[in-house]
């Protein structure tokens, strides 16, 4: 008997609690409304809410960790932020609104992926630019040796007059050229 009464009272209390919650949005939602306006999406619940809350929490950087998302970090701050993301997503705030809400407090730093604007273009384009530039450098380096190969043998002979007699003697001994001069060269 008393157990039924207790159940009834607790049901009434929980209904009253949800009623109060419905009238006055929580502090986080009220703040979000001030910053990013009314929710743009549909309120979510159940599996859809959990999936969307996880997806958005993965895009937010935990401010007290090293490169971890709010979803992955075990810190209590990340836990609080995760709770707030869930609350905002449940109220119908979309990804962009949730990110902008946190960005107002923590700056762009809170986004794990830097948005494509301002100096951030460099972050996105520099790797591609580097790859293209590297390709040119490699192509240039591979082309070089062929061009430089030709004028070698005759250059040394004229370069150093002191070495010339020795060089001619070596050629005479090695190739049997008279006086070390190539026969067709001497004819010219």
């Amino acid at each position, binding site marked *: 008997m008393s157990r039924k009464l207790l159940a009834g009272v607790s049901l009434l209390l929980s209904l009253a609690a949800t009623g109060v919650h419905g009238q006055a949005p929580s*502090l986080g939602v009220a703040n979000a409304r001030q910053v990013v306006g009314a929710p743009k999406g549909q309120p979510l619940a159940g599996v859809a809410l959990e999936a969307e809350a996880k997806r958005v929490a993965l895009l937010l950087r935990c*401010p*007290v960790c090293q490169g971890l998302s709010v979803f992955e970090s075990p810190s209590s*701050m990340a836990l609080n*932020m995760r709770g707030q993301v869930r609350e905002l997503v449940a109220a119908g705030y979309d990804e962009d609104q949730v990110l902008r809400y946190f960005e107002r407090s923590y*700056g762009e730093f809170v986004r794990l992926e830097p948005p494509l604007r301002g100096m951030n273009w460099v972050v996105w384009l520099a790797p591609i630019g580097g790859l293209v*530039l590297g390709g040119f450098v490699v192509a240039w380096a591979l082309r070089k040796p062929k061009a430089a190969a030709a004028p070698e043998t005759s250059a040394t002979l004229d370069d150093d007059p002191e070495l010339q007699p020795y060089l001619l003697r070596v050629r005479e001994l090695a190739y049997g050229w008279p006086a070390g001069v190539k026969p067709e060269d001497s004819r010219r």
Partner: protein
Amino acid sequence: MNKRVLAVGGLVTLPLVGLLLMSLGHDPHRVDSPLIGQKAPAFTLTPVGGGAPVSLESLRGKPVVLNFWATWCAPCFEEHPALTQAARAMAGQAHFFGVIYEDEEEQVEGFLKEQGSAYPSLLDDAGKTAIAYGVYGVPETYFVSPDGVIVEKYVGPLTPKAITALVAQASAR
């Protein structure tokens, strides 16, 4: 040929050296608060030990010092006397409030009984106010102008001199 290598090398290296020089002396862990110069996020929070909830809206007309702290934080312990003294000295000129960051109410009550207190500390459910203010850790103190705009954020333990200067800065706005 050497001149060309030098030119290409310079073209690649000089911007990088420039970037390095530009970043020297810049602490990569320091992120300036985007909230400075913006309207302070609203809150309505219950004081430790009970009492009527305090809302930021109700504090208009005087500068507000909002100190996020916790009993487990050593620098907070260090700055507590400075804040208490300043709050007593500036009673009537500025509002001082503590906001509890990741701590238990009983712990805070015990701490305040032991160390003394000159202003209310507010309970922040699930850290929502801390998140709205972009708090990274404690202690962090926000100085809000009489018309509700964040004038400065101070990271680390406050000194009496800093409090006086920043309250003056907040009321001058």
